């Protein structure tokens, strides 16, 4: 835990506070501790919104513990268990690279190399010098049919290769956010180059 980066305090802002009652209402009375995951997520998003770095500092965990009336250590346990919660600051764009077998077979190594080349990051969990990117290695993100996947914050960019990765990151550097999904123009996970079966079927709502 890098103490030097920990902020001194954290409080939910108006936007987050508006959501808390809705979240708490989902759980039966006395079981508010169940809301620890959504509240941590809320805190992480608020950090991303306000500071540009979506992470959960320790003071935010303490605040969640206070709101839910649980021991802080119970929140620490949850926040450190789930890898989607960043317990250390990340860049504006959190590049989550899947290197599990399907993505790896489809060329995730090239994607990783391209990311390293563009951002100048050497190892995992490091942030680029300009503070824009953090690279994380993640296990299967569940979109193997469109492998390899590069997840940027919440969005999946699919069917990546070295060239498209470089293009995407350059665009992010310029401040543009390209539309997520398959960079090869696939419709969801339909075959590349259009359907190869049931080609005669047409969809006619009138029938």
């Amino acid at each position: 835990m890098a103490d030097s980066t920990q902020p001194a305090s954290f409080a939910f802002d108006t936007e987050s506070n508006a959501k808390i009652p809705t979240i708490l209402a989902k759980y039966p009375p006395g079981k508010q501790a169940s809301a620890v995951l959504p509240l941590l997520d809320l805190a992480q998003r608020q950090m991303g919104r306000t500071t540009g770095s979506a992470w959960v500092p320790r003071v935010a965990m303490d605040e969640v513990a206070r709101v839910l009336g649980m021991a802080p250590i119970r929140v620490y346990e949850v926040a450190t268990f789930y890898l989607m919660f960043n317990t250390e600051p990340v860049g504006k764009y959190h590049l989550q690279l899947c290197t599990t077998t399907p993505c790896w077979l489809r060329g995730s190594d090239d994607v990783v190399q391209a990311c390293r080349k563009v951002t100048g990051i050497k190892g995992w969990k490091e942030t680029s010098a300009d503070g824009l990117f953090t690279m994380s290695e993640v296990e299967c993100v569940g979109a193997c049919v469109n492998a390899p996947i590069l997840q940027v914050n919440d969005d999946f960019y699919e069917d990546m290769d070295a060239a498209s990765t470089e293009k995407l990151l350059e665009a992010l550097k310029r401040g543009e956010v390209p539309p997520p999904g398959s960079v090869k123009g696939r419709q969801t996970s339909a075959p590349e180059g259009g359907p190869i079966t049931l080609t005669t079927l047409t969809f006619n709502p009138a029938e």
Partner: protein
Amino acid sequence: MVKVTVDGIEVEVPAGSNVLQACEAAGKEIPRFCYHERLSVAGNCRMCLVEIEKAPPKPFASCAYPVNDGMVVHTDSPMVRKARRGVMEFLLINHPLDCPICDQGGECDLQDQAVAYGTDRSRYEENKRAVKDKNLGPLVKTVMTRCIHCTRCIRFSTEVAGVPELGATARGESMEVGTYVEKALTSELSGNLIDICPVGALTSKPYAFVARPWELKKTDSVDVLDAVGANIRVDARGPEVLRILPRLNEDVNEEWLADKSRFSVDGLKRRRLDSCWVKRDGKLRKASWQEAFEAIAAKLAGLSGDRVGAVAGNLADAESMVALKDLMAALGSANLDCRQDGAALDASCRDFYNFNTSIAGIEEADALLIVGSNPRREAPLINARIRKRVLAGPFPVAGIGPEADLTYGVDWLGNAPAVLASLLDGTHPFAATLKAANKPMIIVGQGALARPDGAAVLAACWKLAAQTGMLGAEWHGFNVLHTAASRVGALDLGFVPGSKGKGLDAMLGGGVDLLWLLGADEFDTARIGAGTFVVYQGHHGDRGAARADVILPGAAYTEKNGTYVNTEGRVQRGQLAVYPPGEAREDWKILRAFSGFIDKPLPYDNLTAIRARLEQANPVFARTNVLPRFGCSDTAGPAGEPTALSGAPFRPFIENYYQTDPISRASPTMAECTETYMPTLRQAAE
């Protein structure tokens, strides 16, 4: 009851038991790391695997599998053995092979079970993981690489100690047990983490690298550093007590021990009185027993009995107190007192000063009022019992006194005796709660009694108990919580002013010419009159010894065979583990020798005889260890006017839990704890 067959042995266990308990009932040993009968079931070590017939053909974790009627369990089948070997191999993957330098070596569950249930060789050649050690304060040493993630410590701190500060952070191979934010554990029961840790991850910091368990001589004894009377085992090597561990006693301490009782041992080696001292020309000089006795006898010559007085200290054993009382009687004095703090205890009836509900009885109670007490500091083990009761189900707890974190929810009604009055006249809503309860109880602390209106508070509490149905034929809900191990024994022996005798206040300020202090250090010695000749008999050079004219070196509780009565009135015996240092002697023998010296010999020459004298003085001393429970036969209250309450708020009776007596004040470990946990007190003292 459910019938279960374990390895061909048929046993009956209560429904809802788990398979492990059934196996224990059948006398079969089941290896385990995470399972602990006083903690919740985690089921994560997988060491307790057994085979169950007519169930899916796989090994079951017996600690987390409930029994069914007609279940047939095998604990030693080839499948079970193979499964346990596999589990052990996994556990040892990341466990370092540092047993030779590990303090747990020789009393390590992992070591024992690896021998009994593991394989004889390792197939693992990869690197082991290493984990950074955590700093959990001055008492618990951590070597986290040895941790096998049984989570017992996490469950203990959350459930029993009530300080949820330990947790398992991160996941998988990076999982670590710790506090995440580095801090010392703020529990008075943290030493028990050392006992429940099945490996060497949590060990005792003061005892680190001191001794191996097989070098130690173990002596069963009783703790005296608070009034709970926890059963302890004193581990000594040669003339030195090295550590103190709890001993199982379900009725008193279960298997826990408070930190002060466990870690004050190093105080037994410091500031010891090991020879007689006699003051000559205004300066204390070393002397022989002969010279010391001569000095006292010379002072006694020509003194009338009413100019002689005695005060019993908080750590005194019953034998020495009865001997001192008899000596005073032989000198013609009735000036006796044991209440150094000035607590208005009424010795006329045992019910007035006992913890009548009994410690185990707390678990039966269904409402509790705490008056002027902080059980967490005054008796951590009783506090743990109350917490256990709170966790077991609805148990309204209210407190009158300074607010404190007792590790469970307490409804603080206010800090003034006036609240007691409003409970008495029924205007306070909590009075109705107490009345509605079947087995309500009240705990009166010394903080409520050691004040000018103490007698009134005691009487008011008794009256409240009578009004709210605490004093029934079957249930006695009136409790006084003591902090001094000697106090109940002293009151049982009548170590209070006799007829025309003077109490402590009257004896001070020149009320007597010779004052005999039996380990009495807990009052302001500056109040003793300048002309009073003070004989201090005790084991530590503390306040009393500093004021003394003659010092007689006595024995500490690990150095004598002593009888102690705990706050519930349970008579227990401690045994001699090591001999007193130097010229020091067992206290009752000193008094017996002095009585012979002045030709007024006390009529007992050995332990059996003085214990017979104890029984004669009060029949309760005949009944050791057991505590029959009585209802309240007589609801007449103690002397004191229940309405004469003052307006002064109650004050905390113990400021610093870690230093309350000569032994813990001499202990460097306790001084370190004070520095860590009571930084404000430390500054105030300087």
